[in-house]
């Protein structure tokens, strides 16, 4: 009998598998086809202060080994999430959920985190300072040590819930940003958000995405994500949620060996709606195969 449980910022998860924000909506489409309570938890769609449509379409493109998205944080706004989405979510998800928060100013991050942090269902705030698809917000907070520390500090003082800061890989030195967040009081770090990329339609001779650039995710980014998790593990003393191209139970184990306490699954959910379930189901046999009895014992094991 293997033990898949892990502890993330004081909350025990049955397993480390967490569908990533933006690839799982609010869980409802998936709850229609399987019981999503088998998951460790999930991180719901990035939420801002006001309703947003996001970027013009097309905002999805295919790439080798993955995809680009330039959705641009479409969401119904924090009030709607609290008044309508979270009450509905209670009917199909009974664990603590991770609330992904984005914004265009420190005040917005603070307001949204403070409101969502008061919700009993919310276990963690995942602070998205790394969205590559919005201008004047998102990633601009996560590419500079000072602003990363400041927004982290401001949000920490506005909520009692653990704050996990989600980092962008589109920086020169991700470790310095991770350290800045730790100094700002972050309870954890999640990485990586998508890598900025683009495609050009050679028939039209124009960019495929209306936004020109988009975030690259999918199995192709896995080695880059793994490398960054490995590096950040050496740079900080707070738990890491690893993500980027995770598509199998073996990928989860690899991420944990690199230093992840829990692991998010992103684009894989979009091509196979059962992907996260298959990963959860695949963990015990994979652990047995590789001689692992207690999953949390392997965290950072490759160092």
């Amino acid at each position, binding site marked *: 009998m293997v033990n898949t449980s892990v502890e993330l910022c004081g909350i025990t998860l049955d397993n480390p598998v967490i569908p990533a924000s*933006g*690839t*799982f*909506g609010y869980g409802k*489409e*998936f709850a*229609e*086809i399987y019981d999503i309570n088998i998951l460790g938890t999930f991180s719901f*769609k990035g939420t801002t202060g006001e309703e947003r*449509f*996001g970027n013009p*379409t*097309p*905002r*999805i*493109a*295919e*790439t*080798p*080994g*993955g*995809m680009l*998205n330039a*959705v641009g944080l*479409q969401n119904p706004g924090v009030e709607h999430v609290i008044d309508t989405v979270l009450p509905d979510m209670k009917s199909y998800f009974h664990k603590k959920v991770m609330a992904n928060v984005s914004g265009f100013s420190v005040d917005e991050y603070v307001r949204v985190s403070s409101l969502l942090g008061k919700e009993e269902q919310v276990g963690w705030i995942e602070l998205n300072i790394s969205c590559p698809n919005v201008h004047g917000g998102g990633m601009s907070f996560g590419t500079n040590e000072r602003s990363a520390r400041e927004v982290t500090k401001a949000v920490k003082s506005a909520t009692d819930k653990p704050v996990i800061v989600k980092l962008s890989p589109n920086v020169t030195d991700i470790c310095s940003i991770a350290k800045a967040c730790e100094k700002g009081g972050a309870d954890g770090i999640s990485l990586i958000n998508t890598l900025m990329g683009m495609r050009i339609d050679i028939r039209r001779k124009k960019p495929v995405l209306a936004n020109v650039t988009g975030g690259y995710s*999918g*199995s192709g980014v896995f080695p880059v994500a793994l490398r960054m998790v490995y590096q950040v593990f050496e740079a900080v003393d707070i738990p890491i949620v690893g993500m980027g191209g995770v598509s199998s139970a073996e990928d989860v184990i690899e991420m944990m060996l690199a230093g992840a306490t829990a692991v998010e699954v992103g*684009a894989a*959910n*979009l*091509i*196979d*709606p*059962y992907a996260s379930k298959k990963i959860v189901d695949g963990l015990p046999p994979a652990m047995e195969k590789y001689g692992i009895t207690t999953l949390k014992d392997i965290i950072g094991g490759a160092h």
Partner: protein
Amino acid sequence: MKNTTFEILTNAPLAKDVYRMTLSGDTDGVVPGQFVDIQIDGGYLRRPISVCDAEGRVLTLIYKTVGKGTEEMASYKAGKRLDLLTSLGNGYDLFASGDHPLLIGGGVGVPPLYMLAKELIKQGKDVGVILGFNTSCEIFYEEEFASLGARVAITTVDGSRGTKGFVTDALGLFDYTFVYACGPKPMLKAVCDKITTGGQFSLEERMGCGFGACMGCSVKTANGFKRLCKDGPVLNKEEILW
């Protein structure tokens, strides 16, 4: 949404760059206007293709080769097994039709109207169909619609067959109570501007997942933001913001 495996029965060209694929598998619950999302070799994202027909265990898809994914599909032979998500999207509202529904399709917008025509005729409705193409070698499914019992008009832009011009140039041939349309957006807009009855139009947008999770294919409508894959692809005429 259902995730099942289908086996290709036939896959052959139907018109210029247009192929017809029939597959065997579980089609339970598939309604007119829905689509399937197909996992293809060498692709990451699935390919959404509208359902032309679902009868018993046979699913019929008609697709145009427009890129790597559909070109890959065109190379598939009978016997190959494909992983499909089925019953995606809302489908047409069959009860909005009145007694004389008019179905208008342009190019590869024609296929989803076939199953719709079949169901409406089963309900005893008098179905008119306008099929619009650029030129005669692109025409497909004229006889198939006719043998269902629908009255069919063809339009071609170059006048090589049927009424010369666009689908809207054949509107005068029919008395109708409601319009169902699928085709390129400029065609849908022209239809919307000309008709005086209600209508339901099937729209298209580049999709990520196909089942409502990624919000890649959202559109702004008079009733708020809609995910075309989940809240569409069929929208009421009145809610479409052109």
